[in-house]
């Protein structure tokens, strides 16, 4: 049955399951989004809106918030499965590991993109950001999010079975995502016309990151599920 479905079919199956689960549980909407808005508020408390630092740092603060929210979403996404033994069930099923991985990545990307959409509104309202260079912004948001999901899904699955996953996942994932943070922030700064250079190289770097980790994750998910 799964031979006819293929990897992409499996991926779609997994992604649908995750998204349906999320729609039912509404953890993203009920917990992660408020958390993200809260982080924006915390930054405002810390950085004093009147001194202009907040406005200047907006792209960076936005992406830091996205990173923290992504860690929470990943913990949730893989934590559930590890607890209920679903990872074992998946391993024994006919679904290809690469399909499971890509499905997870797809679901996570969609969830994070939705979160970012809300955050964009938050940032526009709270930090009074004016948006220009939309094409570049969208390209950056998409590639950065894909990269976060791709790399995050590997470590998310690895950390899921460990008791210390709450502390281990950020420690493993965030240094890995450092180039994503750098590239996304600098790219957004360019797109918001804060800098006079081209932002597309940053988007290209993000694209490379995403592709590299998508490929690596697809290859590594079988040993990860079976032996890690």
């Amino acid at each position, binding site marked *: 049955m799964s031979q006819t479905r293929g990897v992409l079919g499996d991926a779609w199956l997994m992604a649908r399951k995750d998204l349906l689960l999320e729609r039912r549980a509404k953890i993203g909407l009920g917990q992660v989004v408020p958390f993200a808005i809260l982080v924006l508020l915390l930054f405002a408390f810390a950085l004093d809106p009147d001194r202009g630092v907040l406005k200047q740092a907006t792209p960076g603060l936005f992406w830091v918030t996205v990173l923290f929210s992504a860690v929470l979403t990943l913990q949730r996404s893989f934590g559930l499965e590890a607890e209920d033994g679903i990872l074992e069930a998946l391993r024994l099923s006919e679904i290809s590991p690469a399909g499971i991985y890509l499905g997870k990545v797809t679901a996570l990307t969609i969830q994070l993109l939705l979160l970012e959409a809300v955050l964009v509104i938050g940032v526009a309202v709270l930090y009074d950001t004016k948006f220009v260079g939309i094409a570049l912004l969208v390209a950056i948001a998409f590639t950065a999010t894909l990269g976060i999901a791709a790399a995050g899904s590997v470590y998310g699955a*690895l950390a899921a079975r460990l008791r210390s996953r709450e502390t281990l996942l950020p420690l*493993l994932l965030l*240094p890995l995502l*450092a180039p994503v943070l750098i590239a996304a922030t600098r790219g957004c700064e360019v797109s918001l016309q804060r800098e006079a250079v081209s932002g597309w190289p*940053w988007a290209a770097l993000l694209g490379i990151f995403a592709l*590299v980790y998508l490929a690596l994750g697809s290859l590594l998910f079988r*040993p990860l599920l079976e032996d*890690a």
Partner: protein
Amino acid sequence: MTATKMNSAQSVSPAPTGTGSRGTRLLGAVAVCFLAVAVVYGLFISPPDSQLGNTIRIIYMHVPTVMAAYLAFLTTAVSSAMYLWKRTEFWDLLGSSGAEIGVLFFTVTIIDGALWGKVTWGVFWRWEPRLTTSAVLLIMYLGYLAVRAIPADPKTRATRCAIIGLVAVVNIPIVHKAVDWWRGLHQGKTVLGTLNPEMGGTQLFAMYSALTAGILVCVWLLIHRFRAGYLAERASDLGLGQALEERRLESSSTSSGSKVSGDDS
């Protein structure tokens, strides 16, 4: 790894009392020679650099340690891939040894870089590309060591670490590129950027001696750490074997005592 000849006592040399062997003793001796030359030339004979002044003496340490670190991490990377392919203990031990040694050398690199910065910039830290990249990579591999330390059966632990090893190494060029582009707009005196390419004579000699010494020491450490890891695995197998043996003795003594009461399946 282990010799399989079990001849009579006369033809087999006594077992080593540690992780050393003739090969490593030779390697160590050669490394010490290069180190001695590096110390003498680096600290005393070579003159202060025309651009860097006496701080080049710190660079004599900084460059070899960063090269050693990269050699160690490269070892981990290759070992991680090989482990996932061949699934032998050899690659797992080599990979984890490389990660540990890489972390050691990277830490030293960062400290040396900070000390160089104190003299050159007046501060211990500047967000210049090499130091920044090193900090990120260091934390990535600290994560590797953290996962390595989690008790698990050897196969599980090895697979986890191999995955982290590959995921981390693939990120190294990406981090380099991102940080270089980012900090490239703010060029100041970078740690390596101002090395005089026409460094000649005794300075070049000191640098190459130190570099060779650094690589030799790294390889020497890798071998010893690998063997120590191997012994640790054998020791824990032993411990496991003993525990099983005790359990077996226990159950055989209790079963002989409870034969009268019959079985309870």
